[in-house]
């Protein structure tokens, strides 16, 4: 049996859709009738994506303005271009992905796990290329401060992002939470690159990059909680 013959069998099987009980259709129509009011569709995707990018940039910028722009001031022009162009690209990709996750039936070109892998790999690649100081002074203490600072800045980005997308509906809350966490984490890394003056390679490689998976994990956990709440909601 070849493919056209299988197609023919499938087409035959699909010829008559099953009959739906008219009483069921009536019941469905009746149940939605009382709440059938005009609704305002979501804004275009580019507006939502732009809003998320703006939130990321604003929170990172505000955080650095408060703590100081020492990091970006100490970088060479080439380093600034490479680091911030990479971060901007990743923030844009994560924002588009998050909007896609929040609107059912959106095209998906990258899985959430691929997004976290690509983000970490790109950041590690750029940091490896730029930073050659392999000393490890105050490795853990300084690192924990940076990780905490990055994650603390990721929290408002996540909350504001959630506020922006509150009317959207993520069919898979865990995936949406993971992507939202990655986006927020990238905002946290942006703040660290603007502020942190510790250019030791391992510090930047490990502690700055770690903000992304840690935030992603927190986002996924939040998504999991939403999904549990949905599952327990009365039908």
């Amino acid at each position, binding site marked *: 049996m070849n493919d056209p013959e299988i197609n023919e069998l499938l087409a035959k099987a699909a010829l008559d859709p099953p009959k739906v009980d008219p009483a069921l*259709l009536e019941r469905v129509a009746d149940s939605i009738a009382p709440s059938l009011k005009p609704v305002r569709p979501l804004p275009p995707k580019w507006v939502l994506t732009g809003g998320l990018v703006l939130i990321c940039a604003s929170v990172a910028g505000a955080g650095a303005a408060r703590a100081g722009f020492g990091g970006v001031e100490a970088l060479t022009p080439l380093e600034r271009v490479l680091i911030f162009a990479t971060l901007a690209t990743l923030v844009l990709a994560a924002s588009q992905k998050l909007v896609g996750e929040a609107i059912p*039936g959106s095209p998906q070109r990258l899985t959430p796990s691929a997004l976290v892998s690509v983000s970490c790999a790109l950041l590690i690649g750029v940091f490896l290329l730029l930073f050659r100081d392999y000393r490890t002074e105050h490795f853990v203490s300084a690192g924990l401060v940076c990780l905490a600072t990055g994650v603390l800045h990721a929290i408002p980005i996540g909350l504001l992002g959630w506020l922006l997308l509150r009317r959207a509906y993520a069919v898979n809350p865990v995936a949406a939470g993971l992507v939202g966490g990655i986006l927020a984490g990238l905002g946290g890394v942006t703040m660290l690159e603007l502020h942190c003056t510790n250019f030791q390679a391992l510090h930047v490689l490990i502690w700055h990059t770690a903000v992304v998976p840690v935030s992603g994990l927190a986002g996924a956990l939040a998504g999991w909680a939403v999904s549990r709440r949905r*599952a327990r909601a009365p039908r």
Partner: protein
Amino acid sequence: MARYQAGDFAAAKALIEQVSPRLLRFFLAQRAGRADADDLLQETWLRIHKVRHTYRPGESVMPWFFAIARHIRLDHYRRVLRTRARDERLGEMLQELPPVGGAHDSADVEALEALLAPLNPTQREVLEMLKIAGMSLEEVARATSSSVGSVKQKVHRAYQILRRTLNAPGLKKDPGRGLP
């Protein structure tokens, strides 16, 4: 759909009548019993109604419907999974779940189920959307939150399995296996 979003009851009713058979077949093809499929259909419409503002006019509507229906089905099986066997994987559960509820009322549905029986749930789902619901590769990818490449791969594997199954000795003379 735009008229439904604008609050037109006649449009909502027409949409329910037009789309429900396709959604019902989707649930039945996933080995849900008739009673379960009816419940899932009703639950899907309630969810669609609640999130109807997330459809953006001008975009293809079927991926939007099927993305919601697909997750209603997954949520349903997760609920069943929790109550029946917490340690079994979801995929195995979908494969092993016996039909619950009444018998199917259509020979076509039974024939379709028999034809797709050798496939795993994801292959069955993709083939149902692509070949039976008549959606494009891009639309199936949107509905299943995956890439076009991944959909093509699943279809390719599904065809391999179907070819192997339908060419098995004993089936050659009756490839339709009860199809009308």
